[in-house]
């Protein structure tokens, strides 16, 4: 009973839902992306702090790093991709 068909949910929104999403896309989607990018760059720094322990080279006192580690682990794979992906000026443009 609790399960809802996502297709039906989509249709329920109909034209009004589409207009709502379009207005969000025009007015606020860019802002949301910028906010996410800012947060991600902060998280990169955070991961960098705890990176030493992951590699076995302590940078901070290990006690604190180890306490931070569980928060970092879920993001390691996407963090690696973001850090290693080739970037250029056009990335900043959009």
């Amino acid at each position, binding site marked *: 009973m609790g399960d809802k068909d996502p297709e039906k949910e989509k249709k329920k929104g109909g034209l009004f839902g589409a207009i709502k999403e379009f207005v969000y*896309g025009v007015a606020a989607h*860019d802002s949301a992306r910028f*906010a*996410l990018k800012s947060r*991600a760059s902060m998280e990169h720094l955070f991961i960098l702090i705890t990176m030493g322990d992951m590699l076995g080279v302590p940078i901070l006192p290990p006690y604190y790093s180890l306490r931070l580690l569980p928060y970092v682990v879920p993001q390691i794979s*996407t963090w690696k991709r973001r850090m290693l992906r080739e970037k*250029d*000026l056009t990335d900043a*443009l959009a």
Partner: protein
Amino acid sequence: MNSVVVLIISLAVFFIGYRLYAGYIDKKIIKADPKRATPAKMYMDGVEFMPTSKNVLFGYQFKSIAGAGPIIGPIIAIQWGWLPALLWILLGTFFIGWVQDYASAMMAMRHEGASFGGLSHKLISPRARIILLSFVYFYLLLIAGAFGNVVVDTAVRLKPAPMAWLFLTIAGVIAGQMIYRWKRDIVLTTIVTVIIAMAGIWLGTVAPSNTILGDTLSNNRLLWAVAAFLFCYFAAVLPIWKFSLPVNYVAAYIVFIGLFVGLIGILIIHPNFTLPAVTSFSIPIGPVWPIMFVTIACGAISGWHSIVSSSGTARQLESELDARPVGAGVMFVEMMLAAFALIIAGTIYASPAEYGAAIKMGPGSVFALGVAKFLNAVGLPMEIGRSYGSVMMVVLAITIMQLVVRFMRVATSELLSDVHPVFRNAHVGTFIASILGIVLVLTGWWQYLWVLFGGANQLMASLALMLITAWLMSEGKSYAWAFWPMIFMFITTIAALLYTSYSLLDKVLKGAVKGQALVGNTLMGLVGIFLVIAAVILGIEGVKAFNRYKSMKAKTPEPVEAA
């Protein structure tokens, strides 16, 4: 011809182009597959790669590509007559514009969301990437100059504009505080700040800039150029949530409401074109070919779109099937916007002489009068409508300008930080970008500046089409639909840039220009020559890459059928 007929023809082109041509390419050649995982799904990081609804992306793509470009281009190009301008808008979008926008997104999606630098390295050559990135810097400079000129012209010619612009900025800053600091409801914030911005539009008519600053100051171009770049300076160095984002947020509503109500006004008045269908092959800016084809860039085809499609949209599409509505669909909507601007310019003046006098004051004046006329049809007084149109023009131009100055700051840091660490400083990079922009705005003749910007933009489009052709060749797909548009754009753009640079430098060498104009003509002429050289090198690299793919195909053995 009646303006409604033009709208109907444009809608027919939209329907045939989107449903039939784009549909055929999407299904039969690209073979968009809903089951194939897109980069947004494969590499979802919650930041850049994130599956997003096609409706949201439609709005995002529209907002990112539809600035002042599709409006100003047709307003200037109508000097050759409305018919060639309309034909280029419709045929350019039908055969080239959507091809570039859609295929750029598709190409980036099939290459794990790679950006143009990486794609040009892989598909063309390592040198292509270096040239492309240094080309982008000059491209950005020309955008800052051309759009800065529009802002300054509008502020000088339309006295209500500065007050409306100031109130919009205040409304934006308040919106930032309300959303991010005071944690207020977004709907309440939107209503309050849009009302403040609207109040500024009304106040502009009550207290125009000449009554506050006096005639001398309100007509001073330097003052408004400094104001425009100061605005961009804040946008570039302040935290993005405090200034740039909320100002753009409020501005989006002002522009959207204006366009929507203006369109209703056109349908109510449905005026006839009063300007001639064709005037002359050659006008003071230059001949119809190649100059008109770069004067109308956005609205027919624009290189800027390919950057948005590849680095932005391609990383968010949740299904390959969404690339057509978002990439191609939005381009056709922009074509409609350009047709709307053409109708404004072509119908609001009683005679060509009247239009001729108005265009000398800049495209902002033409646009503001048109908006005023069509808003008047739904009951808004002409004076307030003119103020509304002027702030729309400022907003459309300065939104792109502030973005460009921010990126020029990043580019300065990337290109020059090895020369001296001082270039890493955000204020230094922004200052350099602003000074270069101000020099162009104050010393360049705006119509040449616009043509050069259009040339750089179209060159970017040629490069995007070159990458698309190389990608299609490398995949063994049919490529004529991208190859021939690329050839046309490449030849046309290089011809336009050479013509404009020659005209500018010829005046300098013959001593026909002096003082400020000498600086402006020389600077613009040299930038034009640089762009041509960069394009020729890239063209040679492109031909080498095409030959490489052709020889690879020739060497690949045909599959042997089992006996």
